[in-house]
């Protein structure tokens, strides 16, 4: 019995559908849901910073779900190494580009100041206690 056989047994009453198919379906649907949420957020949110918040979901969480899905479907050393590399580089580059976009949005005033809870870039009023 190889390790791959552990994932491919039949569930009672539903022949032909193994644990691996269920994991694949759940992870693909999770990633697709992240894409849907990002699209709706890009359409509905009011300014650059909140759209940036919506855009981050498929870039990290959806990608982790789909890469884990590929690694579960083909559990070999090369696949898992490439999957870890993909998640590593995406987690390295996506926050950097989001940080640059957010900083450019702040500098060029492409955000709604009335939606901010706190703005730590404004010079502090010396008379306030905060």
């Amino acid at each position, binding site marked *: 019995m190889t390790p791959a056989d552990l994932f491919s047994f039949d569930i009672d009453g539903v022949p032909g559908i193994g644990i691996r198919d269920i994991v694949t379906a759940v992870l693909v649907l999770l990633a697709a849901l992240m894409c849907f949420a990002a699209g709706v957020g890009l359409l509905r949110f009011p300014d650059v910073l909140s*759209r940036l918040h919506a855009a981050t979901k498929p870039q990290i969480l959806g990608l982790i779900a789909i890469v884990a899905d590929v690694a579960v479907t083909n559990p070999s050393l*090369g696949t898992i190494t*490439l999957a870890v590399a993909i998640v590593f580089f995406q987690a390295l580059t996506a926050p950097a580009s989001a940080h640059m976009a957010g900083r450019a949005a702040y500098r060029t005033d492409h955000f709604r100041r009335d939606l901010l809870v706190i703005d730590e870039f404004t010079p502090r009023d010396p008379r306030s206690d905060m």
Partner: protein
Amino acid sequence: MIVVVIIAGLLMAVGAIGAIWRIIRGPSALDRIIASDVLVATAMIAIGAEMAINGHTDNLPVMLGLALFGIVGSVSVARFISSRDDT
């Protein structure tokens, strides 16, 4: 499994159409580059979903390349917008 494929395809299509709509409408160039990042992420997820459902790993280097070089466009555009804003 075909039901899962159809549902996932519809969700990804709606996400991609939202990103394309935001690329077309703007209003600023920063909105456009954020939306293009989302479009690249949607393409990566679609490639990976096809691999996972069909059970092969042929396109994993494509995903690695997109993960590596997706930063270039958005960082350069954000860098130039910080100094000079034409939108």
